[in-house]
C-alpha cells in the first residue's frame, strides 16, 4: 500500500473506525477469529528463528499448519511470568484456540497449571515431561530423550577429532544438560577411549557473548570439535566455523550456518510429533498425558552427516543409531565412574532410556573436564 493513503481525512476516518471497531469488538467478547478451523496456539520463549530451541518448535508448528482444518497462531519472546498466562488466555479468548503448545520448560509451573485448571475445555501440551497424576487432566507433557542423538553425534565427534579434545558449551549444570554432556562423551569414547570433553557453563540459556567467549577459549585450548546445549547454538556454530574447527549442532539443523564445519547434530523432531498430535486432537482420540520417546519413537533425530564426516565415523554412528532404533540399548551402564573417581553406576547395572534415575543425574562422567558446581 502507498503512504499517500494516510491523508488527514483517512486518519480521521481511521480514528473513527478504530473507535467503532473497538466498540463492536467490546460487545462481542470471546468471538473466535477463525471460524470453522481448530485453532492451535504456539508460544515461544525466544525468537522463532533462533536456529535453536524455539526454531525447532516453530518448524513443528509449520508442519502442523499444513494439516487441513488447522489454524496456527504463534507468539514469540513470551517470558516465563504471568505474561505467558495472559498470552494463553488471549489465544483462548480472542483467537478461540482449543489446543495450546506453551513450549518453554518454565511455563509449566505455575502458569500452565493455573490456566489449565481455569479452562478445562482447552488442551495444554507442554514440552518438558513435567506432568504428574495430581495435575489437571487437560494438561499434558511430552519430551524427547535427546541424549540418544547426542550419543550418536558424540561418536561422529570422537572419530573426527585429531587432538582428542572435544568442547561443550552448556547453560546450566542441571540433569538434562549433564545427561547430554555425558552421553556425548560416552559416544566419543567408543571411538577413542582417551578422549576428553571440556565443559564451560555460561550460567543461562541465552548469553551469546559468553557463548562466544567460551567457544573461543575452548578452541584456544586445543579443542577441535565443539558442541553446545544452550537455547540458540548459532553463536557456537559460527564461532567454530570461523576458527576452522568442526562442530556438531543441537536443537535443530544448523548446517546452513557452517556448511563445511557442521558434522552432524542432535535435533528434536517436532515436525513429526505436532501434526500427529493435531490429527489425534481433531479426531477426538485421547493423547497420553505423559508422552516421551527417543530415536526409535521419532521424537528426536540426528542431522544428515556433513562433508567432513569420514567413512569410519559414518559407519560407527549408523551402527549405534541402528542399535538405538532397535530398542533395549542402554547408553548409561556400569561400571561407570564420574570425573572425580566415584563409582556412579555399579558393574552389571544398566539404566535404560526411561529409567527415572537418569532424570536426577548430578555428575559428569570420567573423561569430562569440568565441574557441576
Amino acid at each position, binding site marked *: 500500500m502507498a*503512504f499517500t493513503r*494516510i491523508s488527514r481525512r483517512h486518519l480521521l476516518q481511521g480514528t473513527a*473506525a478504530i473507535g467503532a*471497531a473497538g466498540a463492536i469488538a467490546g460487545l462481542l467478547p470471546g468471538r473466535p477469529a477463525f471460524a470453522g478451523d481448530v485453532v492451535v496456539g504456539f508460544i515461544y520463549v525466544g525468537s522463532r528463528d533462533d536456529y535453536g530451541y524455539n526454531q525447532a518448535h516453530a518448524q513443528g508448528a509449520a508442519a502442523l499448519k499444513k494439516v487441513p482444518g488447522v489454524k496456527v*497462531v504463534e507468539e514469540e519472546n513470551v517470558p*516465563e511470568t504471568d505474561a505467558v498466562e*495472559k498470552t494463553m488466555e488471549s489465544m483462548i479468548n480472542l483467537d478461540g484456540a482449543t489446543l495450546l503448545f506453551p513450549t518453554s520448560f518454565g511455563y509449566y509451573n505455575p502458569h500452565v497449571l493455573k490456566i489449565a485448571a481455569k479452562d478445562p475445555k482447552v488442551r495444554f501440551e507442554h514440552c518438558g515431561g513435567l506432568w504428574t497424576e495430581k495435575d489437571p487432566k487437560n494438561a499434558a507433557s511430552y519430551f524427547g530423550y535427546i541424549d540418544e542423538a547426542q550419543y550418536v553425534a558424540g561418536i561422529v565427534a570422537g572419530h573426527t577429532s585429531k587432538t582428542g579434545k572435544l568442547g561443550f558449551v552448556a547453560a546450566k549444570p*542441571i*540433569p538434562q544438560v549433564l545427561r547430554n554432556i555425558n552421553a556425548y562423551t560416552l559416544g566419543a569414547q567408543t571411538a577413542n577411549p582417551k578422549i576428553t570433553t571440556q565443559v564451560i557453563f555460561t550460567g543461562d540459556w541465552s548469553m551469546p557473548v559468553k557463548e562466544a567467549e567460551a567457544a573461543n577459549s575452548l578452541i584456544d585450548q586445543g579443542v577441535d570439535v565443539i558442541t553446545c546445549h544452550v537455547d540458540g547454538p548459532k553463536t557456537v556454530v559460527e564461532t567454530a566455523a570461523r576458527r576452522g574447527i568442526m562442530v556438531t549442532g543441537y536443537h535443530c539443523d544448523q548446517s546452513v550456518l557452517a556448511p563445511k564445519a557442521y558434522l552432524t547434530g542432535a535435533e528434536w523432531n517436532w515436525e513429526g510429533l505436532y501434526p500427529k498430535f493435531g490429527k489425534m486432537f481433531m479426531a477426538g482420540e485421547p493423547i497420553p498425558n505423559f508422552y516421551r520417546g527417543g530415536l526409535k519413537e521419532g521424537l528426536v533425530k540426528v542431522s544428515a552427516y556433513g562433508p567432513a564426516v569420514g567413512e569410519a565415523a559414518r559407519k560407527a554412528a549408523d551402527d549405534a543409531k541402528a542399535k538405538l532404533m532397535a530398542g533395549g540399548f542402554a547408553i548409561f551402564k556400569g561400571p561407570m565412574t564420574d570425573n572425580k573417581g566415584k563409582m556412579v553406576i555399579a558393574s552389571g547395572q544398566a539404566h535404560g532410556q526411561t529409567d527415572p534415575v537418569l532424570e536426577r543425574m548430578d555428575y559428569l562422567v570420567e573423561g569430562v573436564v569440568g565441574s557441576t558446581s
Partner: protein
Amino acid sequence: MAIAIGDKLAGRAALGDRLRQAAEGVVIPTLALIAAMILFGIFVAVSRVDPLELYAVMYRGAFGTWFSWQNTLTRAAPLILTALCTALPAQLGMVIIGGEGALVMGGLAATAAALALPGAPPLAVQLAMALAGMTAGGLWIALAGGLRHYRGVNETISSLLLVYIAIALLNHLVEGPMRDPASLNKPSTRAIGAANMIGSIPGTDIHWGLVFGIIAAVLAYFLVYRTTFGFAARIAGGNMRAAKVVGLAVGRLVLAMCFLGGAAAGLAGMIEIAAVHGRANGNLAAGLGTTGILVAFLARHNPLAVIPVAVLLGGIGASGGLIQRRLGLPDASVMVLQGIIFLMVLASDALYGRIRFFAPRGG
C-alpha cells in the same frame, strides 16, 4: 493594567495559568504519541500491513474487551512500582536505572522472609514479605545514592551494575543455598505456600499489585508536590549546590529518595513472588525493572502520570501478542513502537514553553 488587577482577578488569572500549564503537560505528550503512531504506521505500511487494521487490532488486544483490559492492567501493575524507582530519585536530578536490581533483591528478600516463617498466619507472612522486600530494594538503591553522594560515583552506572550483581546473587542463591532439591531442571527456592499468596482483586484476574502500585504512586505524588520534604528534594534537584548553601541536608534527601524508589521496586519484586511465581527463580529478572525506566521517562518523572503511562505500555504489551498472531508481524515490532514513542516524547521536551497558547498570561 496594574490598576485593574484586584485580588479576585489575580486569583482567576493564576488559576487560568495553572490550567494552561496542566493542559500543556497533557497535550504535548499526546501530540508526541500521535506523531509516534503515524511514524509507526508508515513503518508497518512498508512491511505491507495496513496501519489502520494494525491499530484496530492493537486497540482490541489492549482495551477492546474486558479480558483485554485485565491483560493490560496486570501488565501495568509492576510497571507503576518499578517506574517510581526511577521517578523518585529523578526529583533530585539523579538518573537511576537499577530498578531491575531492586526488584530482584526485593523478591529474594520477600521469599526468604516467607520461608523463614513457616506456619505463621498468612497476613503476618505477607506483611513480613512486603517489609523485607521494600527494605532490601530500598537499601539496594540507597547504596547507589550513597556512592553518589559520599564517593562521587555516577549513580546511573552504579545502579546499572548493581542490577548484574543482584541477578548474580539471585542465581547463586536459587542454584545453591536456597535451592529446593526437588527443582531438578528449573532451579528454584521452595514454594512460599498457596495460603501465603496474595490473590486477585475480587471479580477480576488482576492481582492486588495494581492497587498497591496506584496507592504508592499517589503517595509519591503527595510526597513530592505537597510536603516540605518533596519541595526540598525538588530544590536540590534544581541546583544541588544552591540547596547546600541554603542549608538543606542534601545527603539525607538523596539517601531517602533513593531508598523510597528502591522500596517501590522491591515491593514490585515481593508482589511478583506473592502473586505470580510463588517461589524465587531466574524468572524474577524478566525485564520489568527495565520497562519501568521507560515508563518514568515517558511520565516525565511525575508519579501520578506514571499510572496512565504504565497502563499505556501494559496495553502495548498486551496487544503485542495479538499483532503477532493476527498480522504476522515479528515481536520486535512492539519494541520498535516503544522506541519510537520514547524518542518522540523525549523530542517533545523541546516544545515546552514554546507554544504560545500555553504561556502564562495573567498576574
